[in-house]
């Protein structure tokens, strides 16, 4: 039985694939590249702000003192106070509410304020394009849908995709080379691409779906819907008393010895509705955490059921770690980096195929070259801005450099020259970033985590240098970004 689609379906699907890819190409590239770099968000946070104390061992008194100090310092405390506990990725304690956030010293006193604006900018770009979150997250999720549409149309448009599954031809026509690269990376990365697209789409589309479903089935009561999916919020009403964090943590250690507490949530602190929730990772599970609930006196009240509740609750609470590669060992992060980079290459090569297919050169080629090679340079420049002149508005620096790169490429009207210039500039900027980091944070330069990032930056600089100075064979026509 022949399963391949008809030539007409192939033709139409290819047309749809091209249209969707071209419409979302630049934004898809931005999302893919920032997402790839954001896999190392924890590492960049530590690198960007190396001063706070790092420690894995703490006792309950430290947390108690930190909470007391936080409540004393903040006049109007929010509804929820978080105490984020040290993990292998981020061995620091910090205490926060909606508007304030400080690191905690080993003795429980408050340390410096949390400030990693470049990493925050990177995450904001990826999650919401730096737009107001409610709007931006929906747009980014719509891009996740477009990635799904590209996967569907790509599969329909390429009936030979499995027949050619192991074939990569280079050196011939640029279009064929790009098409082979695009298709090979796409077909073997399919499980990862599907997962990223679907989980990415879910983050922002849950809201509109919940709004409609709540109106239809819950009389507009969104909290009732949320309770059905995530479990109902526990409401306590008891005399105000000091929180017994130690009692709660001791109980948790006895009840679930394998669970690793990652943060505490103190709901309605200092009121009759005060509630302590301990979020703890469950070994071997992709759920972000199980939430264990305790009264102010440390009495166990129950758990949310993310690990053993309804299947839907477990599934929906597993998408975050899966999307961001925050599970397993450091090797998973390396694989996510490689697969994310591959998806980025797929997004660029898709547009390159179209450019090669149309042949010749015009302003579109130049603009695309500036978009592709300007963004890495802009990201490095924004980090450099932070180190040299403070981190007032890293996004401004990023946009300035990115737009500048596009203008430069339009002015050069020569993709090879433009690309080499931008690659060279990126290599130099990375070296400058390393130098600046050494000057500003010399005492933290060699810390194990920072050393890894610094070595990575050095290698990246060498890669950009090699790309910039490699010889382009004269026979290659229509050079592409």
């Amino acid at each position, binding site marked *: 039985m022949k399963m391949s689609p008809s030539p007409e379906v192939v033709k139409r699907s290819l047309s749809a694939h091209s249209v969707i890819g*071209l419409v979302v190409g630049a934004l898809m590239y931005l999302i893919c590249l920032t997402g790839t770099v954001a896999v190392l968000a924890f590492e960049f946070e530590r690198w960007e702000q190396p001063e706070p104390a790092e420690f894995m061992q703490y006792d309950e008194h430290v947390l108690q003192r930190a909470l007391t100090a936080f409540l004393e310092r903040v006049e109007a405390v929010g509804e929820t106070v978080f105490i984020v506990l040290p993990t292998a990725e981020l061995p620091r304690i910090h205490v926060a509410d909606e508007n304030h956030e400080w690191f905690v010293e080993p003795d429980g006193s408050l340390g410096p304020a949390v400030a990693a604006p470049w990493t925050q900018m990177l995450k904001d770009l990826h999650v919401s394009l730096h737009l107001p979150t409610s709007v931006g997250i929906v747009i980014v999720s719509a891009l996740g849908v477009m990635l799904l549409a590209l996967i569907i149309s790509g599969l329909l448009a390429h009936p030979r995709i499995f027949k050619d599954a*192991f074939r990569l*031809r280079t050196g011939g026509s640029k279009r064929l080379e790009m098409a082979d690269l695009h298709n090979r990376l796409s077909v073997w990365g399919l499980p990862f691409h599907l997962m990223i697209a679907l989980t990415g789409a879910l983050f922002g589309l849950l809201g509109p779906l919940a709004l409609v479903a709540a109106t239809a089935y819950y009389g507009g009561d969104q909290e009732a819907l949320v309770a059905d999916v995530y479990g109902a919020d526990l409401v306590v009403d008891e005399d105000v008393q000091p929180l017994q964090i130690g009692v709660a943590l001791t109980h948790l250690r006895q009840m679930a010895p394998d669970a690793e507490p990652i943060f505490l949530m103190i709901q309605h602190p200092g009121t009759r509705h005060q509630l302590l929730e301990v979020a703890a990772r469950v070994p071997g599970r992709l759920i972000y955490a199980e939430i264990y609930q305790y009264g102010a006196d440390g009495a166990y009240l129950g758990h949310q059921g993310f690990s053993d509740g309804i299947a839907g609750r477990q599934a929906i609470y597993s998408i975050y770690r899966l999307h961001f590669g925050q599970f397993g060992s450091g090797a998973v992060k390396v*694989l996510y980096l490689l697969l994310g980079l591959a998806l980025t290459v797929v997004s660029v090569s898709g547009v390159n195929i179209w450019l090669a*297919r149309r042949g010749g050169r015009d302003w579109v080629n130049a603009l695309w070259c500036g978009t592709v090679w300007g963004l890495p340079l802009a990201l490095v420049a924004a980090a450099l801005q932070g180190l040299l002149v403070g981190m007032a508005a890293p996004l401004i620096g990023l946009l300035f450099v990115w737009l500048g790169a596009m203008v430069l490429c339009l002015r050069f009207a020569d993709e090879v020259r433009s690309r080499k210039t931008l690659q060279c500039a990126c290599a130099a900027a990375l070296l400058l970033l390393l130098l600046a980091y050494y000057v500003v944070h010399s005492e933290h330069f060699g810390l194990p985590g920072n050393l890894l990032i610094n070595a990575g930056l050095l290698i990246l600089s060498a890669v950009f240098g090699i790309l910039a100075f490699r010889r382009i*064979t004269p026979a290659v026509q229509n050079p592409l970004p």
Partner: protein
Amino acid sequence: MIPSFLYDLLALLLCVAGILLLRLSWRRQRTALVWTGWLLLALSPVVWSVSAGVEFAVSYALLALSIAAWLLIAVNVERQPAKAGNGAVDTATLPATTALHKLGTFLVAGPLAASASLLACALLVGLASGAESRGNSMVLTAFVFPLAWGAAVVWVCASDRLLRTAGLLLVVTVVAALGLMP
């Protein structure tokens, strides 16, 4: 007791061996090799689950599968003599349509297809479940909604009859909205 890293190693080897067999059988009529390759790939997460649990195991196996295949492709690159392009811009690489048609396609594939998928999926929540299992239906629908919208986008962009496509999506939107009314 066998150390867990040995299970990890065995699972990784099974994955690599599976891909290798698929590569060896590629473009040759060797059905046994193909089936053995797929069998080894299927066994990989099973072995991994012993040391890492089922959820991590499936993720690890799929990640390793991609990387192993790319590595095999990379070592088997075919180098070809360079070919020259003709230097002219071919503007006919996309369907020639008016600006109005492009805007229409955007609106139909964007807001209209999104509304149709959203309302149809929300209707499914009610049809697929009673009040007691609505949480599960909500989550299932949440996973279906992006897929439905994505498929609708492909359909709209592949269609050469935009008005008919828009009309059908509008009908779905209206019917689903009526079905959702209390």
